[in-house]
């Protein structure tokens, strides 16, 4: 598979690999994803907008150039923006693959950083020389203004053009709290939302601070995903409870939605409304309590996103899916193609359904 290299959220030729609950694999066009939904489905998406989380500047004790990539936060509260965890790179930018980026100078607690108009102090080294906690100077408004004016969206070497925020904000983007775009949501546009409404398909959102997907360092990558704060609106929790009670399908747009909803699951198929921090890892041993179907991007097998798909389908089916995508050259990464996985039949179930196939066009 190859990386998608143009920042187009909805390319007309984007593909969608559909894997149903029986493990049958077929190709569809992603623009037709709406036809895979059926009346009564509840579609849940992550409405986090992407923060311009890449901040260039210098390490004041040495004067060395650095790039700070904000990577974590303890809450989504609008005025809680003093403290962030962050991955620090040495000189250079996204044009160099992360694994080839020079290391930053040795970082010590107390070091001061100048990041455009922002000033920050390293308050803690988080178990890895490049993963630190930062404390930003100034009021919340000054910090937001600094991010807004100086920050750039985090991006990687496969994307050769410089990304702007309008490239990475989904149409439903709300609070700017994601460190990288919740890119499965690129499938959505206002036309799709209108079509869902006409078709009796319910739509709800959560806000989840999607974290960084790669650091270029194997030891750090093994720690991904970092803890991610989220917020589930009361209306969304109620919609999930109603859908569950009515044996209706819950379709998650993106891995972050799965992580948040399963973290907030009450054990009775519904979810707790309000704020939380997703700390768990979703793997093949995870018993899904809430989500029936996931729409996601095409991910590399080593990534945590890929591991999460194993909660939906068994290894043999995932191998079939990979082979099918390889055969026709699906594109990976945030602007690439997509997959639709129904949770395999009998994998668990508050509610067992005989077949999910009837809604397919």
């Amino acid at each position, binding site marked *: 598979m190859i990386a998608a290299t143009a920042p187009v959220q909805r390319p007309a030729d984007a593909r969608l690999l559909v894997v149903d609950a029986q493990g049958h694999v077929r190709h569809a066009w992603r623009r037709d994803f709406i036809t895979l939904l059926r009346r009564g489905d509840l579609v849940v998406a992550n409405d986090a907008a992407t923060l311009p989380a890449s901040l260039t500047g210098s390490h004041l004790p040495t004067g060395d150039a650095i790039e700070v990539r904000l990577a974590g936060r303890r809450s*989504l509260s609008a005025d809680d923006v003093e403290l962030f965890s962050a991955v620090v790179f040495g000189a250079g930018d996204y044009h160099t693959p992360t694994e080839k980026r020079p290391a930053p100078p040795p970082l010590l607690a107390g070091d001061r950083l100048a990041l455009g108009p922002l000033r920050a102090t390293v308050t803690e080294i988080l178990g890895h020389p490049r993963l630190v906690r930062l404390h930003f100077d100034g009021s919340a408004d000054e910090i937001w203004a600094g991010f807004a004016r100086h920050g750039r969206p985090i991006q990687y070497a496969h994307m050769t053009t410089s990304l702007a925020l309008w490239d990475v904000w989904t149409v439903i983007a709300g609070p700017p709290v994601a460190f990288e775009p919740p890119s499965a949501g690129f499938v959505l546009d206002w036309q799709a939302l209108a079509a869902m409404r006409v078709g009796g398909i319910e739509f709800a959102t959560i806000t989840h601070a999607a974290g960084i997907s790669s650091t270029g360092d194997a030891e750090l990558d093994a720690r991904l995903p970092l803890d991610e704060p989220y917020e589930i609106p009361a209306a969304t929790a109620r919609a999930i409870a109603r859908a569950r009670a009515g044996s209706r399908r819950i379709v998650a747009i993106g891995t972050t939605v799965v992580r948040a909803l399963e973290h907030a699951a009450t054990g009775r198929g519904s979810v707790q409304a309000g704020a939380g921090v997703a700390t768990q890892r979703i793997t093949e041993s995870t018993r899904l309590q809430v989500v029936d179907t996931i729409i996601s991007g095409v991910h590399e097998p080593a990534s945590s996103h890929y591991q999460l798909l194993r909660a939906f389908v068994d290894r043999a089916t995932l191998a079939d899916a990979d082979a099918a995508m390889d055969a026709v050259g699906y594109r990976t990464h945030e602007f690439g193609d997509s997959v639709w996985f129904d949770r395999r039949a009998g994998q668990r179930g508050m509610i067992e359904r005989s077949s999910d196939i009837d809604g397919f066009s």
Partner: protein
Amino acid sequence: MNSITGLRVAITGGTSGLGLALVRELCARGARVAFVARGRERVERVAAECPGSHGITGDVSLKVDTYPIAVQILGELGGLDVLINNASDLGPASLRLLGDTDCEDLERALATNLVGPFRLTKAVLGALSASAREGRGAVVLNVSSDAAITPYPTWGAYSASKAALKHLSAIWDAELDGQGVRVLSLDPGDMDTPLHALAVPDADRSTLKRPEAAALEVINAIAAALPARERDGDNSEGLTEQEAAS
């Protein structure tokens, strides 16, 4: 407690005329206010005058400023219930016939009065629709003018931009009907503002509406377009429009 308390409102052109009156009145009523204007010093002065408000320096006519403004609005307020596109540009600094109007003046009027509101609305539309889904309601109010309807000679650049904005508002409102987001257009009347002084320097100011009076009308129009809220100002336990329909 009233329907404005706790409402998250963003206002462009918030340091003079109607915009300033709106910032003051909304802050006084307990709204959470972010306002945008070009001049940093004036922004800081108004923010200091209205404690708790969020002053944002930016130019809505510039494409590159749109997302920095949106990041600050949505970051600082944690979401958005109401956007008031108030910032306006007269076009040529003294009114003149279209044949005497520089293309650049027309372009600037369109950039500020039409394209800017379009861009900013688009950037925050996701947040507004989230507010609507959560039962709080969502409103975009575009400040219009009778010049949007009546073809007054010498007002060509301004009028054309406001006419386009009025039509944009009506179409967007229809398109967003199902999403619970209202897009309103409101003519506040001839007000005693810096923009009016620029247009009609010799006007009898005593005959002009005070911006404070117009601000009340704008706020009433917004309140009327929002769903009724519980007495405690929190509709989180109420049904959303989608729920009520199902």
